[in-house]
């Protein structure tokens, strides 16, 4: 698979979650890439985790960050 296809797949997964109303709440990086935690508030809070492998996706995930930062209150609400 070409590097772009790998990245594009990861980008699509990120964007799909964002479109579904998820927000990025936590990013942990280690030897295996970036573990990105997404949360969606609502009557039933939902959590999704993506393990990003490609450099471009790990870059992209922070490029989309500024607009989706949350307040601590929001985080509490959704971390239940």
């Amino acid at each position, binding site marked *: 698979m070409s*590097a*772009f296809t790998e990245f594009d797949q990861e980008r699509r997964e990120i964007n799909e979650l964002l479109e579904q109303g998820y927000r990025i*709440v*936590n990013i*942990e990086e280690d030897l295996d890439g970036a573990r990105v935690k997404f949360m969606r508030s609502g009557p039933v809070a939902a959590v999704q985790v993506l393990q990003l492998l490609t450099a471009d996706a790990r*870059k992209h995930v*922070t490029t989309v960050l500024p607009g989706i*930062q949350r307040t601590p209150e929001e985080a*509490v609400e959704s*971390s239940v």
Partner: protein
Amino acid sequence: MADLRIELAGIKSPNPFWLASAPPTNTGYQVQRAFEAGWGGAVWKTLGDPIINTSSRFAAVHFNGQRVAGFNNIELITDRPLEVNLKEIYETKKRFPDHAVVASLMVEPKREKWHEIVKRVEDVGVDGLELNFGCPHGMAERGMGAASGQQPDLVEAQTYWVKEAATTPVIVKLTPNITDITVVARHAVKGGADAISMINTINSLAGVDIHTWNTIPHVGGQGAHGGYCGPAVKPIALSMVAECARDRGVGVPISGIGGISTWQDVVEFMLMGATGIQVCTAVMHHGFRIVEEMIDGLNNYLDDKGLASVTELTGKSVPKYSNWGDLDLNYKVVARINQDNCINCNKCHIACEDASHQCIDMLTNAQGKAVLQVREEDCVGCNLCSIVCPADGAIDMIALDNGAAPLTWNQRQQLIGNLNHTYSAAEVM
């Protein structure tokens, strides 16, 4: 015609082209001929207790038919008595009062030794002093040159002793044989240096003769490490000049040295912060007259740029030189092959396939002709293909606007830090 005059920490010179302290500045005869040829200044071959040299002394690294890509020497400082040098310095200065004559000095790290030589040298009317804390061989084994230049406190103390006695500007010449040149530069400034110059030569062994197993060069079958200079060291010298130029703790004028052989090299060093430059290897290779082309080239360049004085170049590229962490990760370039100029040698394909990201395809066009094409979405913009391409204009690196706002590594880490902090704060609430 632009004004080529410079002033480095008070030392005036008709142009920025100085000879570095080395064999071309060994005698009055040589320095005066250099001034006649057009050189604006000269740093005299280092003065100190006269030494004894070995034979042989020099070696060069030739690369792919190009002679002297790098130059290696195990020569020491002057082997002539101080009084002989001083007489010739006096005569040279008398004949060329408007040219810069700087005395390079090296003595043992003792206060009275520095005071003595400074006084004797200044008495003959030099325009300034350059302290040689850089020679990496021979003198270093005796505790001088690079040996004292590698100890920041000793650089500071010796500069201070010189400043106690000196009435002319003091330039401290730094060794590159150190991890972070700015540390030593800052100590030189603390000691009172009016300017710094860099680089002296880099520790080196030019080669080993695979037939005789002797080192190159060797002295009767025995070798010792030498100092490397010439075109090969230019990138190292340029980065050291740039690091010092952008360091606020340094903040004194810089005389740039290392691998300079064309007027373009001079412009690069000045843009990166040098007030003037010095040359050794290129003169040893081609003679004093290379300065004529340097002067013409620099003049034309300044006219083309509409600059009235060469001093306007100094430091102009320094703000463009920062840390890796401040570079924009979202800036994106890709390679594009221009079929009109491509000679189908396949070097780019091989380079990208074997050493980069496997994104140059070999295709056949409608006319049955082999063509190379970059898959731009997979190209990481590493430049390798354009570096190995032998045909001018066959590969362009094109900047793409991907619509993403600039984002540096440092900003990214800050964003992630803030995000995770907010998250953990929320978790404990």
